[in-house]
């Protein structure tokens, strides 16, 4: 690729520090995890050297009785989930991650899946991080305990920063007990009143997902539940009443397959992915209209859709989203970033530039990937 001049893959964090502290010929570093979201963000201003942390992926401490885990950032999400599962726990960000996807990349890209509607995103679980600055020095923010307000939450700034502020080398998360049971009730092409009723008129429903989606078989609505068998069964019964006699039910296996399928749709594998957010109530009745496969989270208002390359459809969707206070962006399906993936410019451009200067004063890390530039 033209914009990545080469790749350095340190074997340890000690080596990573030494490399960063040395001379790289004036090129900027671009932190790289599994490389699954290199197509997110705008094209960097200058050619870069990729700084690949995939060999730095140890579990430093899984304090399972404290419901926390500390890992090196190069660990894959899949591997982390496997470690947690040994003690009946999980990080509720992903059911079926791309095997290459790393924790550092997940944070840097603020990667989200349909699970974010109920469980939130990586920022909600990130207790602390360590990162290396442009000289290879390790800096820290947050900590390893579940409650901590000492110092600025600089881990929040690294979330979504696409590696512009430094390379994340370590992260601590709070984790949760895994749900014992999953279940879902789905129905074809409901009108907009159905999801509204699910949110307003059914206080006995606490869905783990409320999704409109089309994954190739027509539009459907799914109410997904997770938790103890008793609670899942009770809610499934209520959801069936709400969705009517044409509703289908899915057991644990079927529900996890559906979640995995929807999660797969968030990855820019065979086509670009349009993603973003809007007010959930607005999304109950609107169609994104940029591609055939899509999923809308009606709990918080995330959405994802394949984008088939129709620029005018994209422009219409972005324009329509303004009514729902929304925003839509594109992830490229190759490692080559798009020229204008954001379609939106942060009003805080000057502020973001200042933060970049504050944390990377020598401009050793990649620049130009944010919507502010």
């Amino acid at each position, binding site marked *: 690729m033209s914009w990545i001049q080469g790749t350095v893959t340190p074997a340890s964090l000690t080596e990573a520090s030494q490399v960063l502290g040395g001379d790289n010929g004036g090129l900027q570093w671009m932190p790289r995890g599994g490389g699954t979201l290199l197509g997110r963000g705008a094209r960097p201003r200058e050619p870069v050297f990729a700084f690949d942390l995939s060999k730095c992926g140890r579990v430093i401490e899984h304090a399972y009785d404290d419901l926390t885990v500390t890992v090196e950032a190069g660990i894959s999400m899949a591997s982390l989930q496997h470690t947690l599962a040994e003690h009946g726990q999980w990080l509720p960000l992903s059911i079926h991650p791309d095997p290459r996807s790393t924790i550092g990349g997940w944070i840097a890209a603020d990667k989200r899946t349909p699970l974010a509607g109920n469980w939130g995103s990586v920022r909600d679980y990130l207790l602390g991080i360590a990162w290396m600055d442009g000289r290879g020095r390790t800096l820290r923010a947050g900590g390893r*305990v579940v409650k901590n307000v000492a110092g600025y939450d600089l881990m929040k700034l690294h979330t979504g920063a696409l590696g512009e502020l430094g390379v994340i080398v370590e992260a601590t998360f709070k984790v949760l007990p895994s749900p014992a049971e999953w279940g879902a009730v789905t129905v074809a092409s409901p009108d907009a009143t159905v999801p509204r009723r699910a949110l307003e008129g059914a206080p006995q429903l606490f869905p783990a997902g409320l999704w409109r989606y089309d994954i190739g078989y027509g539009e459907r609505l799914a109410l997904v539940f997770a*938790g103890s068998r008793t*609670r899942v069964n009770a809610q499934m019964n209520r959801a069936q009443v709400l969705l009517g006699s044409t509703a289908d039910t899915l057991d644990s296996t079927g529900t996890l397959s559906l979640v995995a399928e929807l999660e797969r749709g968030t990855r820019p594998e065979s086509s670009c992915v349009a993603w973003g957010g809007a007010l959930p109530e607005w999304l109950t009745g609107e169609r994104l209209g940029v591609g055939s496969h899509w999923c809308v989270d009606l709990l918080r208002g995330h959405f994802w859709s394949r984008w088939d390359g129709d620029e005018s459809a994209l422009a219409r969707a972005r324009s329509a989203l303004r009514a729902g206070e929304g925003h839509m962006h594109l992830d490229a399906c190759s490692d080559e970033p798009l020229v204008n993936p954001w379609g939106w410019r942060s009003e805080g451009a000057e502020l973001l530039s200042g933060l970049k200067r504050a944390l990377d004063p020598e401009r050793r890390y990649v620049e130009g990937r944010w919507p502010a530039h």
Partner: protein
Amino acid sequence: MIDLDRDLERIVGPDGIVRDPRLRMVYECDGYTLDRRVPERVVLPATIDDVKRVMQLAHEAGWPIVPRGAGTGLAGGTLAAPGALVIALTRLRAIETLDPLNRQALVQAGVANLAISKAALPYGLHYAPDPSSQSVSTLGGNIAGNSGGPHTLKTGVTTNHVLALELVTSDGASRWLGSRAPGLPGPDVTGLVVGSEGTLGLVTRAWVRLVPVPPATRTLLAAFPGVDEASRAVSAILRSGIVPAAVELMDAPILEALHAAFKLEFPQNAGALLLVEVDGLEEGIEEDAQHVIDACRQCGAFEIERATTDADRRRLWMARKKAFGALGRLARNYCTQDGVVPRTKLPEMLRFIAEVGRDAGIRVANVFHAGDGNLHPILLYDERNEHEVQAVLEASARILERCLELGGSLTGEHGIGVEKLALMDRAFSAESIAAMDRVRRVFDPNRRMNSGKAIPEGGGCFDGNAGLGRVRPGREVPL
């Protein structure tokens, strides 16, 4: 010559400025009373536009700014710097929008935390963070401190519930950060501002997330022989695979104070009580409660009371909620600490706290968020006795340093303020603190926003804090 004080009055009106020195004494401290300083200027703007104009005027005058809410902070975060203008936002009391369909509300900074939940209740919703001061503490103060509370074990703290906020920086400029819609790209600057203790700017209003009120709750009060057994039960409960809504621990001195003050009765020989609440759907809640009961019994609980009605629940919570009010029966003054340890270290840490109390010759009571590992050792003293004051300060430092040694934090929800500033270099490296200071100066190049709080100035080496409070344990406050 421009009379800036006259200009200030023109903006906020004569009743928006506190001139009487006796009334200004109200603003000499917050809930942390070891350090005090009467501010020279206090204003109470009534509109967001007035806040911006006051900030612009302060910018022209070069006045340091001290933001203030209800003054319930416990780390001296509202202590006034010399020459500072205290801007109290308690008059910004409007809930501008309540949007039950999107489960969001636009709330001004001076609205009390509990008022948000009360407004949302008719829609079956509430605002989840619930600091113990929630009936008076304001949303603005909660955002500055990233406040938690007893029920945040399950639902998270303030940062998990703030979607967007309006920030007025020291130059008087205002901007919205964040979005009502999720997933805004770029660094999460909203998350940075939450918990920054008013050092990055003044938050005037925010969009917050509302969540459904759980339809069913079970509250249990378990009596243990001592804190060791009770704190071991905390890990046992979490190991059972459920996440309770709250797990609160009270030790023997607290029970003694509650009995003396309110005649509350507790099981005989109870050395500690654990208050545990589980919530969710009615279906399954008995299973959760039984998990808690089993875990408590395995760890030595000899009596467990459970609430079956709302009245029962309020009665069981009464001890927890009245605990701080009861302490006046034991001592003239008290200082509440706020360290955090991993939950599994609670037994070890509580033994250490008792040892520190014995060494210092002061009584220490404990009532705290055990489920979060968030300790609140309460050091009892008489402020007229300088020897006791010194002992409290030194004991506090020992306790917090031990929290760090055990892998914990200096503060779980009260903030650094002026109180713990001198310990920041124990928690973070000089490079990390310097990075935080550079971030601060992006928002406030001249460090006029709440200077001397939260982050040591001068790139990591502690070099004093704008003439405020203590530099090391001891009293150096211009009273």
